[in-house]
């Protein structure tokens, strides 16, 4: 073989590779574009790639910026391109892009829809993703905790008709703590944890494939945690009033309520081991719980008001968004009401409000890996990954 021939062979191989790459690029997955539209990105096809969105976006890195790139990738059905990098999650949906979009293409809403599809693709088992993803699955999802809790209450607790009315309300007599609460909720919690682990592992795998990671994981995670706790990225959102405040209220109320729950759990086990305990309102657990509840309600009120106030300009949001808002609202409202009804000793309603509270908490926990709740881990993962790949602006 002569040198010339070698060169020619190499060139041919390169050309073939190039052609394959191009073919892959222009091979549209039309179904994917349709799915994005169905998932709430119905404005996707209006985009004409002017890049106003990228310029008005304050959270994008300058190199390979978003969201214009994501809009064309979605139109062309380049699903893998969208799912295998951190960008869709670096977007915090400030919606400045949506407000300034000259075509009403609503990049903020489209990226929200893509995020939903992405996390549901990585989450497992996929049947739960499907059920959480559309209104048709709602009844099945609700039936599960209702049946489980009713079963446990009828086996181990007492229905309100059997409880002495007029006396003090003790929810533990209705739903016994150990068997009707701890048992199902601990299982739901660990199930969610395990499924989160699998989903995030899939996502990380898709991102990391063929990429060079640098920097320490621990330092990156630390940095991300600080960013999340201080909500610095939300400072860059120009348009939605008090978005930082409302989201921080939600985050911190969840943290506070988690601590209160932890204390409750410890106290309960102390009780089981023979300690005599009372739960007056001034103990730390109750104080924290009540502060958490107020913060949660306030945060939700701002979120919901903003959604409606800005609906014409930014879109009302998708089913996926509202499912989470409604579930958290139900948790917060029934939780607060259950406490007030107990203090007011209004038994006829109290037990059933408490029951709805239990169902909604179960819903929130067990389905977290498939609902918008999962954004906390996917976004955090994307932020860690972007730090480790030196994605600037991150």
């Amino acid at each position, binding site marked *: 073989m002569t040198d010339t021939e070698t060169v020619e062979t190499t060139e041919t191989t390169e050309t073939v590779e190039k052609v394959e790459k191009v073919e892959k690029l222009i091979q549209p997955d039309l179904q994917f574009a349709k799915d994005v539209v169905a998932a709430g990105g119905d404005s996707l096809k209006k985009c*004409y790639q*002017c890049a106003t969105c990228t310029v008005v976006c304050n959270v994008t890195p300058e190199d390979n*910026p978003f969201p214009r790139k994501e809009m064309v990738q979605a139109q062309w059905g380049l699903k893998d391109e969208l799912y295998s990098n951190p960008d869709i999650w670096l977007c915090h949906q400030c919606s400045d892009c949506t407000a300034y979009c000259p075509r009403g293409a609503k990049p903020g809403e489209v990226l929200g829809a893509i995020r939903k599809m992405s996390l549901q693709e990585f989450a497992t088992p996929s049947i739960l993703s499907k059920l959480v993803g559309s209104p048709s699955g709602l009844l099945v999802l609700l039936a599960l905790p209702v049946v489980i809790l009713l079963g446990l209450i009828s086996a181990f607790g007492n229905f309100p008709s059997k409880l002495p009315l007029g006396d003090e309300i003790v929810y533990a007599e209705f739903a016994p703590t150990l068997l009707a609460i701890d048992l199902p909720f601990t299982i739901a919690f660990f199930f969610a944890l395990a499924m989160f682990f699998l989903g995030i592992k899939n996502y990380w795998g898709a991102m990391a494939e063929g990429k060079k990671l640098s920097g320490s994981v621990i330092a990156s995670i630390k940095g991300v945690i600080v960013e999340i706790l201080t909500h610095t990225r939300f400072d860059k959102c120009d348009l939605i009033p008090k978005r930082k405040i409302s989201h921080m209220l939600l985050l911190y109320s969840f943290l506070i309520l988690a601590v209160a729950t932890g204390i409750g759990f410890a106290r309960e086990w102390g009780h089981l081991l023979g300690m005599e305990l009372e739960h007056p309102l001034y103990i730390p657990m109750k104080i924290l719980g009540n502060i958490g509840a107020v913060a949660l309600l306030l945060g939700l009120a701002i979120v919901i008001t903003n959604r409606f106030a800005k609906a014409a300009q930014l879109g009302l949001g998708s089913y996926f968004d509202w499912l989470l808002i409604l579930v958290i609202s139900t948790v917060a409202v029934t939780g607060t009401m259950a406490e007030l009804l107990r203090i007011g000793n209004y038994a006829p309603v109290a037990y059933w409000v408490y029951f709805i509270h239990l169902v909604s908490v179960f819903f929130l926990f067990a389905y977290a890996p498939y609902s918008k709740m999962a954004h906390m881990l996917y976004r955090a993962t994307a932020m860690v990954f972007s730090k480790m790949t030196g994605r600037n602006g991150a």
Partner: protein
Amino acid sequence: MAEQRVLVIGGGISGLTAALEAAEAGYEVHLVEKNHYLGGRVAQLNKYFPKLCPPVCGLEMNFRRLKENPRIKFYTMSEVAGISGSEGDFEVDVKVNPRFVNDRCTGCNACTEACPAERPNDFNFGMDTTKSAYLPFEQAFPFKYVIDAGNCSKDCGQACKAACKYKAIDLDMKAETLKLKVGSIVTATGWDLYDTSKVDTLGGGKARNAITNMQMERLAAVNGPTGGKIQRPSDGKEPKKVAFVQCAGSRDENHLAHCSYICCMASLKQATYLREQYEDSEVEIFYIDIRTPGRYEQFYWKVRDDEKVTLTKGKVAAITEDASTGDVTVEYEDVLAGKKQKKTFDMVVLAAGMQPSTKDSAIPGISLTPEGFVQPSALKAGISAVGSTKSPVDVQRSVQDATGAALKSIQTLVRR
């Protein structure tokens, strides 16, 4: 018997053409113009397509046709206040505003010299001022001065009057309403430049050296505020590095939902103004799509091939000014490179779009589209619309359209 007369609303290139074509075919024409001169937007251009000649060449010829034709009666400073009746038998109320200068004006300039007050010069888009008694530009037709009463206190008017030895100034002129009987109507009300200060993403009008494309026309025009020397407004510096920002308001549902059709050609043309004036100048045009319909494509190739002209795909969505130097920084995504960038220029030209004049001043009884254009399909029988009244369009197509509308309006008269 139908009224054997045509009313043309608007005395720009479209309305002038329609009026002349109908008159030269032998019909009586009333021409109503809001400004105190004829020629409309074309009069403000430095050069226009397709021949890139100055407006004098096209307007001069039309003014001559008009002067020679006794069948046209034109009213400046006039607006249509109401249209009643139907095809063949319209009655139109026309409000004629006072000019404060009568037909005895010889254009001697004495009133301007004597006038103590000044006004912002709207003909030059506010880049300079004129006296409150003035002639908008040298070739103005009718060649008659005007007094801007809003910017002329009582003493100012008296000073002008005293200076006029021809008794041409009449400060007691009042607005009057005429009733015109016509058989058919042509609307040719044209366009206004979109107010780019409404566009947040283009700096909201705060950067002094971010001018509009029409200001650029005036800067380049020999009869403009700088005598044709392109210099930036803040300090008169020769701009050597200039950005053109396309779709400044156009193709944007928050501003003008339509494509304004001519702005790409305008920017390419203005790039040549700059390149011809300053050999060492550099131009960068930021676009979504370069739209150069039909044979205009060849002009696009010519400008594109100038190595000092760069075309960058990516809409500018932030403009800031360096207060000390007056330089203007634009922010954009270079779409083909996938990079979000900032670049600083001596001057920025905003390719502002066409807003139909009917958007702000509708003609009573004429239906409009949501954007404010005249809706041709909703026009009453006997009324036709021309040129940029219906949709953004260039001069040559406006003129062709006007000739067609003249024929239509004549058919209305003849049919009955």
